[in-house]
């Protein structure tokens, strides 16, 4: 079962090596590190990283973030392990290491190509994988929050992200399972399948949520939260 969970955006810009000399989004980064550090200290048997990918599947725990895929250059090295790890899992793994976590890990991707039911199933199976599991979900809101956003502006994006935040913030995650998948896709909420898996993984538990960050400084919705199971 899940004893604690954290939500962070799967934004590559969390990784300082990708963003150049000047500090980028320091408040977002520290919120993510704090959320990951909480998980590292949750007393779990393992931490599972959950994120969206092109397939719904588990990955070798040795797989790591391929920095060179985002920032090629002289001296850029490819990671050990099998290639093809979805970047949300790579960034989540990086975040855990950065937060000082050295214990056992599981890596699970869920795909927007698969149904909400299939993603929920993967989330529930993940929750059952260890007696005491902590869960790090790497998922973003809409990438269409402003004119300068990657997906340009869509005036439905803010309401959608607010509804997600409300579900996460209130602990009533059930809404995520019934939410409009097509709308999530149109709004470029690329992490949404992972949020559905999160909802299934946490089903039945009573949750207390601490929202650590909420905003869209680059036009992509970022929500950082810690979810504690109270009973």
């Amino acid at each position: 079962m899940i004893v604690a969970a954290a939500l962070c955006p799967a934004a590559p810009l969390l990784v300082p090596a990708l963003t150049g000399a000047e500090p980028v989004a320091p408040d977002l980064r520290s919120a993510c590190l704090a959320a990951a550090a909480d998980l590292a200290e949750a007393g779990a048997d393992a931490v599972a990283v959950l994120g969206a990918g092109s397939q719904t599947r588990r990955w070798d725990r040795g797989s790591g973030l391929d920095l060179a895929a985002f920032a090629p250059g002289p001296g850029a090295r490819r990671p050990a392990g099998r290639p093809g790890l979805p970047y949300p899992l790579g960034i989540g793994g990086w975040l855990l290491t950065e937060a000082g976590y050295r214990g056992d890990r599981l890596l699970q991707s869920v795909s927007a190509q698969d149904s909400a039911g299939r993603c929920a199933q993967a989330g529930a199976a993940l929750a059952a994988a260890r007696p005491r599991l902590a869960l790090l979900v790497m998922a973003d809101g809409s990438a269409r929050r402003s004119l300068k956003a990657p997906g340009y502006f869509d005036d439905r994006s803010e309401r959608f992200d607010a509804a997600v935040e409300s579900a996460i913030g209130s602990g009533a995650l059930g809404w995520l399972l019934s939410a409009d998948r097509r709308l999530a896709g149109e709004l470029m909420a690329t992490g949404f399948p992972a949020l559905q898996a999160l909802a299934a993984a946490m089903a039945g538990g009573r949750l207390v949520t601490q929202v650590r960050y909420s905003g869209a400084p680059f036009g992509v919705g970022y929500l950082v939260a810690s979810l504690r199971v109270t009973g």
Partner: protein
Amino acid sequence: MAVARRKGARAGMSEAREQGLLKLGAHSFGPRDLLVMAIVNRTPDSFFRPGDTWEEPAAMQRVHRAVTEGADIVDIGGVPAAPGPEVDVAEEIRRTSGFVAAVRAAYPGLIISTDTWRHEVARAACAAGADLINDSWGGWDAGLGAVAAEFGAGLVCSHAGGQRPRTRPFRVSYADVMADVIEHTTRLAARAVADGVEPARIVIDAAHDFGKNTWHSLEVTRRLDEMAATGWPVLVSLSNKDFVGETLNLPVTERLAGTLAATAICAWQGARIFRAHQVAATRQVLDMVAAIRGDRPPARAVRALA
């Protein structure tokens, strides 16, 4: 894909291409010639000096000045690359084809390029006198080659990372960005040959910033010699782009020095066409690079010679 590339390489390996000949309009250029392509936007909302040449008289003034400053080609576009208000085919044609005809009438020998990804717009522009179709969106519209072939025009084959026209890249990543650029652009070039475009009129372009983050554009710049080694003439479009702005942390109005540095590096590695806003400065850089390479004598050398 590999099969297509091999077939394309055979089809494209004409005698003219082996000599590095590039044909644009009635002109022929050798592999050491460096050409400036001046940007002329018939748009109210392009990123650099938005609306500057939206009105036709201002656009024609821009052409006059570009020619005076040493432009070899003018590239006329009617739709900004960034997302924004929809510009449909009819409106894009309205913005560009009449102006192409006007420039053709004013400058019978000037090389005119049409900056579009749509074959309907390219057809209208070629009918009005354009010599080259500059498609920055990676061959999204497969009908461009047939239009170029029909009019004896050239075609720029670019790499946009599979992005739909007028979309921004979002967390794009590549196992090897330059390998992807070469694979895609040479495949498009082979497709153009198959469509009947004259091989000596086909150009390839890495399309900096298109489907790329800043690291990717820097890598493409660093390794541009690999594109030149394909034998296809290479165009670079660097002018005042975001990869320059992010590298130097400068707004769009202050990116000339960075643009020119990238221009020199690309010229040194074999790029042959340079799409630019600031024509005079670009021409100076290219003349200097040509002199350093030994392709162009100094304008006047008397220092220590008198």
